C-alpha cells in the first residue's frame, strides 16, 4: 500500500472514531484526591495544568478497607473535593482496592495518564514507617509517568464551611446525657449493686460507653469510658470515695476496661456510621426511584414539572422553581413549589438563571459562581441541550447544601431534564407525524383531484368539441351517446365536488348535526331513489324489520351515508347481482347492513378503506376518490355510532352501520291505534282532525 493511501485511510479512521487530530492530546493528567482540605488546592493546580496543556484530566479517589472515611465530616469533605473537581471539568473516578499506590498507577496506565499530581504527606515518620508511604510507592513504581508532589495549604474560604460543620457536631448535650447516665448508673449500683463483685460492676460501666457510641458517636463514648473508669475507681474500688487505689491489680483492671471500652466504642461508632450511610443511600435511592417512577408515567409536561418540583422541594426542604424558555425564547417560571415566590422573580435571580441557561453550569450558593447567593441554580440538561433551569431557594444564607445532598439534587435534576427532553421529543414526534400525515393527505388530495376532475372534464370537453365541430355530422345515435357521456362526466364531477366539500366541512369542524326523529324506512327510500339511475340490472332487496323504532339522526347526512355505501356496493359488484339492505334492532343499536356480492375487500384492507383517500388495491382501476367511506365514518361517528366492513361469503363486502337507539318522545294525548280504526265516514266536520 502506498504511503498516500495509508494516510488517507488513517485520516478516515481518526475521523470516523472522532479521534482528535494529534495523539498527544489524549494524554491525561490525574490528581489524587482525599478528604484532606488540601486536596482542593491540588485539584485547582491540576486544573490549571490540564488547561494549559489542553488535555483532559482525572480526579481519582482510592477507597481501601483501611481508608474508609472515618467520620461524617471526612466523608463530606471527600465528596466536596470530588465535586469541586467535577465542577472544574475533571472526570471523577472512585476506585476500590487494597493498595492505593498500585491502584493509582494501574488506573493511570489504563487511562493514558502521563502526569500525576499528588499531595505531599503531612503525617509523621513513625506513621509512615508503620503503614508505608503511598507517595513513595507511587514514585518508586511510576516509571514513565511523571509525578508532581505539592505541598498543601489550607484554603480559607472552603474551610469556613467545615468549621460550621464541626461546631454543629460539637454538641454538649450528648456529654450531659452520658454524665447523667453514668451518675444514675453509679447511684443504682450503689443501692442495688453492693452484692455484685467489683469485676461485674466494672462491666456495668461499659453500658454508657456502648450507648454513647451507638447514639452519639466516638467522642461521647470515649468520654463515657473515661468518666466510667473514674466513677468506678472513686465509688467502688477501695478505698471508696477516693481516687487512690489500694490494690495495684485494679490498675490493670482499669487498663483492660479502657481498652475494651475504646475498642467497643470505635467498633460501635463505625457500625453506627455505616448504618447512617446505608440509610442515607437507601433514602436517596428511594427518592430517585420514586421520582423516576413518577416521571416514566407522565406524558404531560405540566404534570411532570409539578411532580418534579414537589419531589425535589420535599427532598431538599426548600422552595424550588423551574424556569423554561417560552415560545419567544424568554425564560420564565413555569412551575414552582408553594410559598412566596418573590425571590425567583427578582432581577439578580433572573440574571443568574439566564447565565446558567446559557452556560449549562451550576451557579449560586457554594459554587464557583456567586457562591454566597441564597439560591442554587441547576441547568436541566441532557447532552448538549439545555432545556431549562431549576432553582432552589435556601431559607437561610448560611445554610450549606451538603455535598451528598448536592449529588442527590444533581441526580434529581438530570432525571427531570431527561423527562423534559423525553416529553419534548414526544411532542416533536407527534408534530412531525401530523405534518407527515397532512403532507400525505395533501399529495393524495392533489392526485385525486387532478385525476378525478380531469378525467370527466376530458370526456366533456372532448364530446362537446366534437359536437360543436361543424365538419362532422353525427347520426342521432352517436349524438345521443356523446351527449350522455357529457352528462355522466358532469355528474361524476358533481359527485366529487360534493364529496370534497363534505370532507372539508368535516375536517374544518363545520359538521353540525341537525338531528330530528326519522323513520329509517323513509331515509332508505330516499337513498334508493338517489342510486336508482346507476343500478342498471342490479337488484336491491330490502329487509327492514317492521318493529324498528324511529331514530334521532340527521336524515340528510344518514341518507348520504347510505347513498355512499350503496354506490360502492353497486360500483364494485357485477351487473344483475343482488344487494341486500337489512336493518334490525340489536342491543340498543340500530344496525343497517348492506351486503353486496362484488369484488370484496381483502382482510388487511377492511379497516383502512375508511381512511381518507385510501383506495383498495383491487379498486385501482375503478374511478373513485377514496373519500366516500371516510365521510361515512365521520358522519356515523358524529352520531355516536360505528361503521365497519366485513367479508361476505362467498364473495363481496358487508358494511354494517350501527347507530345508538334513544327512546323517542311519547306522542301526547294521541292514541293512534284508537284513531286508526275510526271509519272515515265519521268525518262529520272539517275540523275533526285539528287539535
Amino acid at each position, binding site marked *: 500500500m502506498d504511503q498516500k493511501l495509508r494516510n488517507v485511510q488513517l485520516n478516515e479512521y481518526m475521523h470516523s472514531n472522532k479521534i482528535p487530530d494529534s495523539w498527544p492530546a489524549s494524554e491525561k493528567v490525574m490528581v489524587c484526591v482525599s478528604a484532606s482540605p488540601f486536596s482542593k488546592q491540588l485539584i485547582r493546580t491540576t486544573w490549571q495544568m490540564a488547561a494549559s496543556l489542553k488535555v483532559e484530566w482525572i480526579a481519582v479517589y482510592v477507597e481501601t478497607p483501611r481508608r474508609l472515611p472515618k467520620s461524617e465530616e471526612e466523608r463530606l469533605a471527600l465528596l466536596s473535593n470530588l465535586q469541586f473537581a467535577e465542577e472544574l471539568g475533571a472526570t471523577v473516578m472512585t476506585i476500590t482496592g487494597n493498595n492505593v499506590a498500585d491502584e493509582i498507577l494501574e488506573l493511570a496506565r489504563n487511562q493514558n495518564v502521563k502526569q500525576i499530581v499528588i499531595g505531599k504527606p503531612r503525617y509523621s515518620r513513625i506513621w509512615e514507617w508503620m503503614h508505608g508511604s503511598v507517595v513513595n510507592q507511587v514514585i518508586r513504581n511510576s516509571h514513565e509517568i511523571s509525578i508532581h508532589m505539592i505541598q498543601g495549604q489550607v484554603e480559607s474560604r472552603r474551610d469556613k464551611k467545615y468549621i460550621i460543620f464541626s461546631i454543629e457536631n460539637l454538641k454538649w448535650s450528648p456529654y450531659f446525657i452520658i454524665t447523667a447516665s453514668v451518675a444514675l448508673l453509679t447511684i443504682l449500683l450503689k443501692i442495688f449493686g453492693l452484692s455484685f463483685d467489683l469485676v461485674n460492676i466494672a462491666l456495668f460501666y461499659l453500658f454508657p460507653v456502648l450507648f454513647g457510641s451507638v447514639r452519639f458517636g466516638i467522642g461521647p463514648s470515649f468520654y463515657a469510658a473515661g468518666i466510667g473508669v473514674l466513677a468506678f475507681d472513686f465509688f467502688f474500688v477501695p478505698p471508696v470515695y477516693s481516687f487512690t487505689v489500694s490494690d495495684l491489680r485494679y490498675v490493670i483492671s482499669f487498663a483492660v476496661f479502657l481498652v475494651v471500652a475504646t475498642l467497643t466504642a470505635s467498633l460501635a461508632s463505625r457500625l453506627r456510621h455505616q448504618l447512617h450511610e446505608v440509610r442515607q443511600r437507601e433514602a436517596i435511592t428511594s427518592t430517585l426511584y420514586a421520582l423516576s417512577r413518577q416521571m416514566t408515567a407522565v406524558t404531560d409536561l405540566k404534570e411532570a414539572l409539578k411532580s418534579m418540583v414537589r419531589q425535589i422541594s420535599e427532598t431538599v426542604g426548600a422552595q424550588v422553581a423551574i424556569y423554561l424558555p417560552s415560545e419567544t425564547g424568554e425564560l420564565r417560571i413555569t412551575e414552582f413549589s408553594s410559598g412566596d415566590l418573590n425571590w425567583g422573580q427578582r432581577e439578580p435571580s433572573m440574571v443568574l438563571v439566564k447565565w446558567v441557561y446559557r452556560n449549562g453550569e451550576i451557579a449560586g450558593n457554594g459554587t464557583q459562581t456567586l457562591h454566597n447567593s441564597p439560591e442554587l441554580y441547576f441547568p436541566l440538561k441532557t447532552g448538549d441541550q439545555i432545556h431549562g433551569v431549576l432553582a432552589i431557594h435556601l431559607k437561610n444564607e448560611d445554610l450549606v447544601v451538603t455535598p451528598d445532598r448536592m449529588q442527590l439534587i444533581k441526580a434529581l435534576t438530570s432525571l427531570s431534564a431527561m423527562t423534559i427532553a423525553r416529553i419534548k421529543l414526544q411532542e416533536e414526534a407527534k408534530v412531525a407525524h401530523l405534518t407527515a400525515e397532512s403532507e400525505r393527505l395533501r399529495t393524495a388530495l392533489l392526485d385525486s383531484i387532478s385525476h378525478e376532475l380531469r378525467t370527466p372534464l376530458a370526456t366533456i370537453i372532448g364530446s362537446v368539441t366534437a359536437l360543436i365541430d361543424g365538419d362532422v355530422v353525427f347520426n342521432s345515435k352517436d349524438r345521443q351517446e356523446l351527449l350522455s357521456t357529457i352528462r355522466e362526466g358532469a355528474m361524476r364531477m358533481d359527485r366529487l365536488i360534493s364529496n370534497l366539500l363534505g370532507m372539508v366541512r368535516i375536517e374544518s369542524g363545520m359538521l353540525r348535526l341537525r338531528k330530528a326523529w326519522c323513520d329509517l324506512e323513509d331515509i332508505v327510500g330516499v337513498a334508493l331513489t338517489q342510486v336508482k339511475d346507476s343500478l342498471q340490472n342490479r337488484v336491491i332487496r330490502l329487509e327492514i324489520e317492521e318493529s324498528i323504532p*324511529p331514530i334521532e339522526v340527521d336524515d340528510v347526512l344518514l341518507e348520504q351515508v347510505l347513498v355512499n355505501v350503496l354506490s360502492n356496493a353497486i360500483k364494485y359488484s357485477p351487473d344483475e347481482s343482488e344487494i341486500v339492505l337489512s336493518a334490525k334492532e340489536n342491543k340498543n343499536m340500530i344496525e343497517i347492513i348492506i351486503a353486496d356480492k362484488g369484488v370484496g375487500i381483502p382482510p388487511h384492507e377492511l379497516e383502512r378503506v375508511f381512511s381518507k383517500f385510501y383506495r383498495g388495491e383491487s379498486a385501482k382501476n375503478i374511478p373513485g376518490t377514496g373519500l366516500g367511506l371516510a365521510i361515512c365514518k365521520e358522519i356515523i361517528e358524529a352520531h355516536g355510532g360505528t361503521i365497519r366492513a366485513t367479508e361476505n361469503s362467498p364473495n363481496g363486502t358487508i358494511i354494517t352501520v350501527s347507530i345508538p337507539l334513544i327512546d323517542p318522545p311519547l306522542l301526547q294525548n294521541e292514541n293512534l291505534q284508537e284513531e286508526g280504526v275510526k271509519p272515515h265516514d265519521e268525518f262529520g266536520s272539517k275540523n275533526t282532525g*285539528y287539535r
Partner: protein
Amino acid sequence: MTSSGAKILVIDDEPQIQKLLRVTLQARGFEIVEASSGEDGILQAAMVRPDLIVLDLGLPDIPGMEVLQRIHEWTQIPIIVLTAKDREEDKISALDSGADDYVTKPFGMGELLARIRVALRHNAKSQDEPILKFGRLVIDLAGRTVELDGEKIKLTPTEYELLKILATNAGRVMTHKQLLQQVWGGHQYDSNSHYLRVYIGHLRKKIETDSARPNFIITEPGIGYRFMANT
C-alpha cells in the same frame, strides 16, 4: 297545459345560467325577462308583471331571501328559488317565506321545467275541484273519502287532513313547518315534528304499495314532503 307563453323573470347574476335558462326556456315557448341583480329583479318584477320568477338565492347585491320577501310584499307571483347543494337551511327559510319551490344547482332541465309547470298550474287553478285523481288514488274532497284502486280506504282525521294538504299542493314541496301549521294549527311545530313523520308513515302504509319505495309521498330530506302528481 297552458304554460306555454307564460312570462318568466330570471333573476341570476351568472351569465352562463342566464344564457342556459334563456335558451332552454324560450325553446319551450316561455317568454324570458332577465335581471342580473336583486334590485334589478325587484324592479323588473313590478314592471313586467311576470307569471313566474326564477330567483337565485346567491345574488351579489342583496340576499336572495330579501328579494323574495320584498316581492312577496305586494304580489303572490310564484317564485322558484335556485340554491346550492347542502344548504337545507336556505331552502327551508325560502320555502317558509313563500317561495313556491326550489331547485338545487346543478339541476337537470327536466326537473326545473316540472317545477315551473307545477307552480304555474297551481297558481292558475283555484281549489274548487272537488275530486282529485292521481292514477290509482282518488280523493273526494267533498265527500271526504279516499279510494285506492276503486276501494275506499280508512284514514284517521289527521291522516286525511295531511293527505288532503299534500294532494291539493301536488307536485310542490311542502316543508315540515307548513304541513304542521296546516294540519295541527300553527303552533308548537318543533315539538310536534315527530308526529308528522309518524303520520306520513301511517299514510304511506295505507296508500303506497311499497312504503320504502313510495310513489305518492316523496321525502325531501331535511326539508319536507312532496306529493307526486304524475303517478
